[in-house]
């Protein structure tokens, strides 16, 4: 017997850290000292705040290096960093610093070029609350997903990867409890890459996988 799926929701609020950077060298130094929640925010916070998707540069560090330091090679390298590949934020922090230092070694002046706009480090607080909705079956979950708030999608699909020991989204983790009957659905949901889409698109993509399985497996 699988426990019902508890639908939670979350709201994120941004907090200024008081740290900013005007050069690449400063960005490197500040990256070393800002709270881990700031690194989290600059990778994922964009999903819950005003921003249009930048098709080339998926995190705030890459965007800043491209548009304010004007260094394309480093922007491209930073853009390639996929946070879901890192088991925790400290390892991600080290990777970012390594990439920046490697690029600084390639140019004598790059570390000291003054940015056209400063980078402001922001961290976030996340408030997670129970919506009191309980879903008993995968079918019920499938019907409910299109109506979930974007906060719920963020919590169960993005935040879950940071929160759970297997770094897995909550939907596929719950579906796997039903055994082989939903194996294909579970696999398809777990393979959705949330990194290049916004939350509305992500919600639609998850809902689509459920719809497709309804057709093929009679859910």
């Amino acid at each position, binding site marked *: 017997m699988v426990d019902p799926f508890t639908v939670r929701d979350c*709201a994120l609020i941004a907090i200024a850290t008081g740290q900013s950077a005007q050069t690449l060298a400063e960005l490197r130094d500040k990256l070393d000292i800002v*709270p881990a929640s700031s690194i989290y925010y600059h990778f994922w916070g964009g999903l819950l705040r*005003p921003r*249009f998707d930048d098709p080339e540069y998926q995190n705030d560090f890459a965007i800043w290096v491209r548009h304010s330091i004007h260094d394309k090679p480093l922007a491209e390298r930073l853009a390639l960093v996929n946070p879901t590949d890192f088991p925790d934020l400290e390892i991600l922090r080290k990777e970012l610093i390594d990439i920046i230092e490697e690029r600084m070694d390639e140019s004598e002046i790059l570390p000291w070029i003054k940015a056209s706009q400063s980078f402001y480090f922001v961290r*976030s*607080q*996340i*408030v997670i609350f129970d919506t009191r909705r309980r879903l008993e079956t995968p079918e019920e979950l499938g019907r409910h997903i299109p109506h979930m708030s974007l906060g719920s999608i963020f919590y169960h699909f993005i935040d879950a990867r940071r929160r759970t020991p297997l770094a897995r989204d909550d939907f596929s983790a719950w579906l796997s409890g039903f055994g082989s009957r939903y194996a294909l659905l579970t696999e398809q949901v777990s393979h959705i890459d949330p990194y290049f889409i916004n939350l509305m698109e992500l919600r639609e993509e998850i809902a689509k996988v459920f719809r497709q399985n309804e057709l093929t497996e009679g859910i």
Partner: protein
Amino acid sequence: MATLLDQYESIVGADVIDQLRQLARLLVGKNVLHVNSTKAGGGVAELLHRIVPLMRELGIDAHWETISGDAEFFQCTKLMHNSLQGKRMDIPETMLKHYEVINAENFGMLRNSLEEADIVFIHDPQPAALIENLPERKGRWIWRCHIDAGRPYRPVWRYLKRFVQDYDASIWSLSEFAQRLPHPMYLMAPSIDPLSDKNCELSREDLEKTYERFGLDFERPIITQISRFDRFKDPLGVLHTYRLVKEFIPIQLVYAGGGATDDPEGEEVYSQVMTSAGDDPDVHILMLPPDDNLTVNALQRISDIILQKSLREGFGLTVAEALWKAKPVIGGDTGGIRLQVVNHYTGFLVNTPEGAALRIRYLLKRRNNLKEIGERAREYVRENFLITRNVREYLTLMIAIMHEAEDRIELA
């Protein structure tokens, strides 16, 4: 009659309102007090007129009080306001003492409300010193700075910081506006109210009357900037832009600004603009009464493109107002305009009249792009700059502040 929440639900959707109800469930019955210095005029009062009833509808025991003061007090707080925005204005010691006395008098009148509240929001510098009168506080006190204080005149900021640092948290509109303080500095962009006179839907008849009233030709494109007569809004640059475009396209320009201004430079800038405009019949320089929001709304709606060619700007909410009316905005690359104008998505950021002229010509030539950008702009505002987002952030902040400053707050 539909409740406020019902009215907003028809604009933002049920899931957004449902999320507000879910969050508010955790705050039902909490006594929340907002304090500012005026019930009428200005963006803060406009915001509170809506946010307080919305919070009450959500089950929160929200109240709004204002402080009162004499001419000397408001002269002092005006100087503070300008100094926080970077003007070098020394405030005499006697005036600062008077500021503290007036705050103490107001504290006496508001004492019960301030003592009983679970959360107190103090808006801007005017009532900031209330806090020193209540060293033993039951509730959480939060200072909301609506001003761009990114580069303040240091002596004045140092004075104000004496009070502000005692708060449990502060709220700033952008991270570049925030000053370092020993408490959490929350970031909250301002918002617009889609139900207000400034932003509500208008009838075709209302719009037609606006053409007639100002002698505008509905056959030719209209470019509009809504701004005070202030050098930082670059009105002469706007005229220069108009002339550069006019060589190619027979456009009309509207520059509409508020009439009542406490800026002594306002009159001087206005006459410079009038002189520069000359007798060109297609340039319409309008001095509107400060509360003529329906006219501003109509002018934005009959325009093809909105300019906000500021050289320096706080948040610049007129941009969100224009985007909400599905108009592309060509804005100065400064302050909060950068958060609202995204190149090719909601408009264009520019640095010169030449840049603005080029983008106007581009959009007027490519009408499909203009329409697409306008539609995207409206959706961008719907998701990010409506008052419902502001309410969500206030609720989130209140929950966060009542659970200490942890990164993750998991509530049963």
